[in-house]
């Protein structure tokens, strides 16, 4: 174990959340829960990034009264990356949900194992 586990509690939480999401995505049989797991996983990564940008005692990166010294603001880069990432995860969620509707229309179940059994039974 390294020295900074307690100082990095935010990152530790995001690591745990990431793994919870990952486990959900792997293990849940229900497709909708898989998608929620995916969203949790993405949020965890964004939390990790946002923690990286945070510096205690500094303000949000919006210039106030023309002060442009480095000491006044937190790091803006992670915020920008997370903004991009959120859009990506919304798009992916919408796509997955529409796939879910289609799949349910066809097989009347949300369980992927069950669907593969149905496919095997149909033979083709």
């Amino acid at each position, binding site marked *: *174990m*390294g*020295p*900074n*586990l307690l*100082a*990095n*509690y935010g*990152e*530790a939480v995001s*690591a*745990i959340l*990431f*793994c919870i999401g*990952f*486990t959900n995505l*792997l*293990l849940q049989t229900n497709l909708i829960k898989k998608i929620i797991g995916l969203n949790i996983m993405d949020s965890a990564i964004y939390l990790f990034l946002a*923690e*990286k*940008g*945070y*510096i*205690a005692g500094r303000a*949000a*990166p*919006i*210039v106030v009264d*023309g002060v*442009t*010294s*480095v000491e*006044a*603001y937190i*790091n*803006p*880069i*992670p*915020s*920008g*990356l997370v*903004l*991009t990432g*959120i*859009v*990506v995860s919304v*798009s992916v969620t*919408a*796509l997955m*949900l*529409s*796939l879910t*509707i*289609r799949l349910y229309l066809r097989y*009347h*179940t949300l369980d992927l*194992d*069950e669907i593969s*059994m149905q496919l095997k*039974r149909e033979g083709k």
Partner: protein
Amino acid sequence: MSRKKSIEEYQKTSAFRFFRWLSGEEDPYIGNVEMCPQEEYQPDQEAALRREKEHDAILDKVYDTTHNKSLYLFHRLYQATSVLFCLFLIALLLVTVSYLPANGTVIRPVNNEVAERYIEKGLEETGAVNIVAGMILDYRAFDTLGESHVLFTATITVLILLRLNKTEKDEAEVNDRRFEPKNDAILQLVATFLVPIIIIFGIYIILNGHLGPGGGFSGGAVIGAGLVLYLNAFGFKKTERFFTEKTYKWVCFFSLSFYCLAKSYSFYTGANQLHSVIPKGTPGAILSSGLILPLNIAVGLVVACTIYAFYAMFRKGGF
């Protein structure tokens, strides 16, 4: 009796009516508001039974340990390895985190010359008061261009999956509204007040993107949410007057083309060391920071339309 009013008089006061309504004796809206009775959701018994039977049969096959031992073993093995893998991942990530540079402090690799320049020169070089907006739409604009195309690609795939043709669409619409009231008076009243406020708030977020928190994407999402509320309150008939597939197509096309062309111009001039003719304006004014405001508007339009399109597509496979 110490009461000043008689019982008949008391019964006319609003306090009496309120308490009666509170105790559930009378609905104060009866006679005042037209309501559609809600139909109970009744699943088709026969179909449900049949499905259940099939389901059971399949489940038997899947989880039948006596006849299908290998499959059962495979499932167990899969689950066990997944759990182990996830525990391993947690441990690995926690160890990693414990070796990372300490959080919240100033001396970290992250706080290097890159962030420094964004903060110190950002206002001067991009003209945006919101440094994040300046960063994503000017310094690192290629990412953002890609991001808006991710959204576009996702819309195309949703269109492929859920778009229906005309007759199917009508049928889907009938099915869609079968289990809910057509004109819910409360919802409509609330929507009349809320929708303009939400949409104005969204427009504010978009236009203010370079001056404060917000920007094209969040503002567009707020407007989209307002449109979805409007659609839910008043139905597709009303929204189709101003928003059809054609509107969506052209709005998306023009916004994305504008985005692409504007950014191409700025990339081209940047790479070839040409002088860009776009003025930066006075920082802090609404018309400032070069391309950021128009780009925010374009992104906002795309996002608002896309969110509405997603919702309409999910509801009835078209709009």
